């Protein structure tokens, strides 16, 4: 596991991670290590800390104890510094309803400091199955379309690590296929962590971590 990392390779290490949710301990003493090409599925009952773990990984929630480190191109980052490495998809993620899909993506590309053409953004939207709906307001999108847009948001900066919380919730059959394709493609680029209880999605992972079992 500790071989020298190739350039563009990413490693994610958790050391004795603990998390509390309003003074209730939900995750304790979790240690693991993932490298490029790994897909991890996190499962567990409601309230077992699946979403919390993903939020810890993208720095949205603070650690109670332990350490999370990303290593990319030989540089170490804490989750808070690693936002350029991470794409996060979650039901909690909302985009601007008063803007169009394209305006949303253009905005997020600008704040991330990316130089992108509108045509590339349109291609990204088509890739997640929103082709031709670029100029529609997000408020007019159905819940399934909003979920697709979240993928466009998360993939915008070509992250090395993709964190998916309930990846296919509200998606139809074709949407699920799109997600499966995205996950397989991400394997070549880096790491995927999926939080789910869906039996079909459990099969996507190389490893399955079940939380709350103790």
């Amino acid at each position, binding site marked *: 596991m500790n071989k020298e990392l190739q350039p563009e390779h990413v490693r994610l290490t958790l050391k004795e991670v603990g998390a509390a949710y309003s003074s209730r301990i939900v995750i304790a003493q979790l240690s693991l290590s993932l490298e490029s090409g790994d897909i991890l599925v996190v499962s567990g009952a409601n309230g077992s800390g699946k979403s919390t773990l993903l939020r810890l990984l993208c720095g949205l929630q603070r650690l109670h104890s332990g350490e999370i480190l990303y290593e990319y191109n030989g540089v170490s980052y804490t989750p808070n510094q690693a936002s*350029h490495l991470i794409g996060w998809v979650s039901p909690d993620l909302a985009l601007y309803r008063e803007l169009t899909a394209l305006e949303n993506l253009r905005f997020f590309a600008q704040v991330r400091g990316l130089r992108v053409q509108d045509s590339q953004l349109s291609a990204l939207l088509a890739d997640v199955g929103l082709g031709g709906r670029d100029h529609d307001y997000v408020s007019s999108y159905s819940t399934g379309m909003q979920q697709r847009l979240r993928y466009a948001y998360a993939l915008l900066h070509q992250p090395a690590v993709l964190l998916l919380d309930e990846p296919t919730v509200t998606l139809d059959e074709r949407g699920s296929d799109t997600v499966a394709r995205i996950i397989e493609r991400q394997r070549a680029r880096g790491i995927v962590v999926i939080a789910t209880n869906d039996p079909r999605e459990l099969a996507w992972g190389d490893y399955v971590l079940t939380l709350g079992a103790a």
Partner: protein
Amino acid sequence: MTPQAAPNELPLRSLLLAAWAVFMKDLRSELRSRYAINAILLFAVSTAVAVSLGVGFIGLRREGDWINIQSSLLWIALLFAALNGLARSFVQEEETRTGLALRLAAPSHAIYLGKLCFNLALLAILDLVTCLFFMMFIRLQIANPSLFIALLVMGSVALACTTTILAAIIAKASLKSALFAVLSFPLLVPLLVIAIQGTALAIEGATWSEGFSYLQSLIGFAVAMFVASLLLFRFVWES
């Protein structure tokens, strides 16, 4: 598309570009919903009309205390309108839950600067409209317009520097709008004292050298608030 550089390596230029993007995004949202602008303009108009109905053209009264009253009324109108509109951009991020997407994508300083600029733009419109209405409805006459404008602009900058971070704080609490006024007012007292007295001097026709110390104090206040906000904003935004 090229993979993004690490945020801590972003030079100042891209920070400012990101801030500009946040500002333009807020401006676009605002132009579509017109929530904040309607709230503050309605407030400005109501105050000017209410004062006019109550006491008539007090701008024509040029002796001693009347000038202070005009200046106080002007700043009261600005303050209350501002307290109605300036929290909007942060509260909206929380209410529509877009804060998380923004937090993951943008450096926190860029968000602060963008929102600050947006609030400054709102205040610029508010200043303009309020002064016009005061001139129309209570016949406010300003003897030293350049000093008046300088004090008004600097006062507004100081107001925005103080309230923007407070808006970020109350966006994460309950009872948002009431709390905004409660948190803001005590911190705005020094600003109001300086601005009201300085503006009264400008209305009365004091020279630049007489009004300069007021301007200096406002600049000092704005700089102190701005620096403190930059240092503290991260703790608010990431909680």
